[in-house]
């Protein structure tokens, strides 16, 4: 394989690597190096230089996020790992933790040291039972080996790590809702500001990072920031990314590829092409909340900036491909129904607006819609985008925006024919 494998280097089908196997391939060297050679300040600087961007979907630069964190403030501070991976089409974190849980544990210890937090929580999706089990074992092993607990490697730094099971709603992936959930409260997102870095878990400074983001930290330490940036195929990008393929492909697997890999290469080389010899029609490039790409975008490099330039988002790089016999109205309806069901019920555009959108799409799909409904759909898009309390409804508008931008004709056909043209 041509791409250097950082996160998936120990992945073998049906196997989980624990401490012995992890160490055999250089595991915990980043941690030892960080504690031996680097100050927390230097680690933060290196992460900042590496231009690592958050892998949970929003793509916010991790170094900048850490820069907001009051690492020198006395009293309890928390590092929280967001492993509530529930977006349709995204399964990379689950794959990583099923194969190599120590990647996350090591990354979290170094991050905690860099941010000077004393307690960490891994908030894990309810369905990831095996992964949670793996993590618990990895934490026990790391504690035994002196990487976790009191006075880590004689540095005087203490860190304890806990695994906390999610109650299992999509909204818990929103960082402030996650913090409420972790506190045992109803997981409605919180009002920002104050941001978690100021007032997070139990009212204390908190940083919430994605699994994949944290698992990259030790590789940045060992390889250096420049090496990490050079891994990407685009100039602005950095590092590798776990691409989870799904949908109408011959092979739907998760691959670690450089950031900036073109869509065509992913579909044809790694996905084995569209199934049953059909044609590529569209894809969600980064999970259910990203606007569709069409066949015209096959040569776009999958990276944060290049996808934003074509009106979509890199998201979690969960690439879901639709073949040319897919009704995009039905596909969008299916996605909107997911978001509607997973709304926490806090704000009106999300709670009731998505209900309205789902109803309109259902009317379209059933062939009962009129051009007026088509106009209403545009109206909903304009009024839900950017007006909701958190990013859930915003994300739900991703596929709808893609539908209205690229598949106008399909909508018109539904109205004209009085039924779904694909049935």
């Amino acid at each position, binding site marked *: 394989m041509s791409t250097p494998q950082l996160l998936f280097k120990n992945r073998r089908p049906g196997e989980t690597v624990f401490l012995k196997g992890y160490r055999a391939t250089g595991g915990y060297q980043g941690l030892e190096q960080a504690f031996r050679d680097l100050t927390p300040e230097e680690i933060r600087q290196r992460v900042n230089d590496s231009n690592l961007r958050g892998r949970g979907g929003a793509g916010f630069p991790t170094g900048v996020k850490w820069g907001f964190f009051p690492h020198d403030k006395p009293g309890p501070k928390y590092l929280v790992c967001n492993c509530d991976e529930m977006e349709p089409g995204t399964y990379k974190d689950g794959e990583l933790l099923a194969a190599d849980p120590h990647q996350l544990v090591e990354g979290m210890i170094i991050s905690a040291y860099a941010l000077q937090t004393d307690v960490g929580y891994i908030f894990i999706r309810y369905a990831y039972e095996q992964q949670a089990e793996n993590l618990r074992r990895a934490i026990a092993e790391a504690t035994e080996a002196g990487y976790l607990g009191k006075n880590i490697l004689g540095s005087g730094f203490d860190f304890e790590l806990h695994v906390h099971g999610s109650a299992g*709603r999509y*909204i818990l992936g929103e960082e402030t809702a996650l913090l409420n959930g972790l506190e045992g409260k*109803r997981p409605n997102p919180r*009002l920002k500001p104050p941001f978690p870095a100021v007032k997070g878990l139990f009212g204390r400074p908190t940083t919430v990072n994605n699994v994949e983001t944290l698992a990259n930290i030790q590789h940045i330490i060992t390889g250096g920031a420049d090496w990490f940036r050079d891994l990407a195929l685009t100039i602005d990008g950095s590092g590798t990314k776990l691409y989870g393929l799904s949908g109408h492909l011959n092979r739907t697997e998760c691959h670690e590829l450089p950031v900036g890999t073109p869509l065509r290469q992913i579909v044809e080389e790694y996905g084995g092409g569209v199934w049953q010899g059909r044609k590529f029609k569209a894809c969600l490039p980064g999970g259910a909340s990203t606007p569709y790409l069409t066949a015209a975008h096959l040569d776009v490099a999958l990276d944060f900036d290049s996808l934003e330039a074509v009106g979509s988002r890199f998201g979690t790089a969960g690439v879901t491909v639709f073949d040319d016999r897919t009704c995009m109205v039905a596909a969008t309806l299916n996605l909107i129904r997911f978001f*509607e*069901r*997973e*709304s*926490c*019920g*806090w*704000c*009106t*555009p999300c*709670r*009731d*607006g998505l*209900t*309205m959108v789902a*109803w309109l799409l*259902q009317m379209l799909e059933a062939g009962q819609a009129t051009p007026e409904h088509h106009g*209403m759909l545009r*109206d*909903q898009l304009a*009024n839900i985008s*950017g*007006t*909701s*309390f958190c990013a859930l409804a915003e994300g739900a508008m991703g596929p709808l925006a893609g539908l209205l931008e690229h598949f106008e004709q399909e909508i018109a056909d539904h109205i004209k024919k009085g039924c779904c043209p694909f049935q």
Partner: protein
Amino acid sequence: MPTLTIDNQQVTVPEGASVLTAAEQLGIVIPHFCYHKALGAVGACRLCAVTVLEGSQKGLKMSCLIPAEEGMVVLTGDERSANFRARVIEWLMINHPHDCPVCDEGGECQLQEMTIAGGHDIRRYRGKKRTYNNQDLGPFVVQEMNRCIQCYRCARTYQDYCGGRDFGVQGSRNRVFFGRFEDGMLESDFSGNLVDVCPTGVFTDKTFRFKSRYWDLQEASSICPHCSLGCATVPGARLRELQRVRSGINPQVNGHFICDRGRFGSGYVNHPERPRQARSDREGTLDIDAAVRLLKSRSQQLIAEHGPDAVLLLGSARASLEANWLLQQWAWQLGCSAPLFGAHSARHAAAQVAAKDLSARLASLEQLRSSDLVVVFGADPLAEAPMLALALRQVIRQGGQVMIYDPRPIELPWEFDHTSLSCQDLLNLVGGEKTAEGDMLQDLLQRSERPVLVGGGDLLGPNGLQKLGRLAAELTSEERPCLVHPLLSAPNSFGAALLSPTEPADLLSRLESGLVKMLVCLETDPLLEAPQSSKFARCHRSKPPAVTSTTKGDCRPSRRSSSPACRSPKPAPAIIPPVTFARKALAASRDPPGGYCSNCLVRKVISLRYGSASLRHCRAWRGC
């Protein structure tokens, strides 16, 4: 103090104020549901959107969440924000039933107003509406969840503000449910506030159910007669009946809420056995004017025959300051001895300490709510003055501390420190005796930024309150006052105490002297209110005064005797019943019940004509 421009008008607001409140200052109403003055902004309903042209955040923004900035330019009625608000209303109306004709909220429904104002008329959504099964929430509050627009005000009031634990949010997405885990009476003593805060008809007053339309109801502001705090209430009456009481707004006292006793505890006003006509033992039922004439002539006659001590006027802590003052005028006119203002001498003495010795350092409930340490000596807040308990809740919500020293088992629906000690130890503690507890308390109070001491007048007594005053004085420094909140017994204990001479004679000893031939009680019934009522009754029976006139306001029917008046039917040969605290609302209703307030009754007795304007004022406001 940023100055900003809203709809081409400039306004300067305090630092940190939101654009919504800044607009309010200009008289511009930005539609909203989830924002509430007492509950704050949470940004859930998204109705208060405005367009920000200049400012650090531009574009469509929620006015309840963005702070006013210097030089900000905001439009509230532009196309973008008006269009968005119309969409929000449309979304909220997706599931709302069209049952306004049978909804008690109709006419005072914020959703109705916003729907009309938002321009939403025809429902475009034709899908299925969401429906719920309602819960039985007890005798006071009706739930109709289908009407819910999920503004979360109810849960924020019940749980956050009032500390209730048996009601809250359940479910998610557009199936959010606001209720209890199972049917049953709401446990909170402040449950009635759900009715006031709900912007639509989800929670309505069960005692008022289907009685009147809002616009047929005559409302007039009043003050709650149930405890000494004096919360603002708004009784509403129709067809000679008090139909409901809702909370008035008085920021310095109750804020926006009232307790359930104040809201649902006024059934006696409509009770068929409440005396509404004057009567005397000799003449039977009397015209009120005739009764007043009788009272006047008998009192003058007795003074003439037996001297100034023959007539004793007894005011009360339930009567208004004006009525008590007029009673004093009457005493001067008659030439009898000065009136007494309380049947219960110890309570009255405690009130006098509060009114005279503590007056320089009294804390309002508003000041108490913003305190960081409240120490309660000898008071059971929920039982004696429920809104005091709610004020303590706000102290705790803001991270302050509440400590209660009381011999009784005290319950509050939230965490607090309770130390049980005997009455003597309590007095010693207030007196600053050196103990471990006392030292700890002194230390805490010294470190507190805004300490308030609450003293129960009944348990501490006048001496205890005086000690409390001294303690507060010791703790007060130039830059940091220590305030006192004495808890008295009746709505106007304070006013009655202000009128009293410093050393009031005890009612019982006056009666036992045998000189009193006639006792005139103004809105009081000594048999119920005096501490040794049996002794009082005995004295009454052995030497019955010639005429006793009880004019007790809010006279409740007694359960113990069949008498409609009070417990002392025989020794009270004449009764002139004044109207109740809801007089204003009742008087404004169609076909009002007759009667005078106690204020005007006394004024008629003394034929006071100091300016007819004053009488007109009373006529207009009290309906006399």
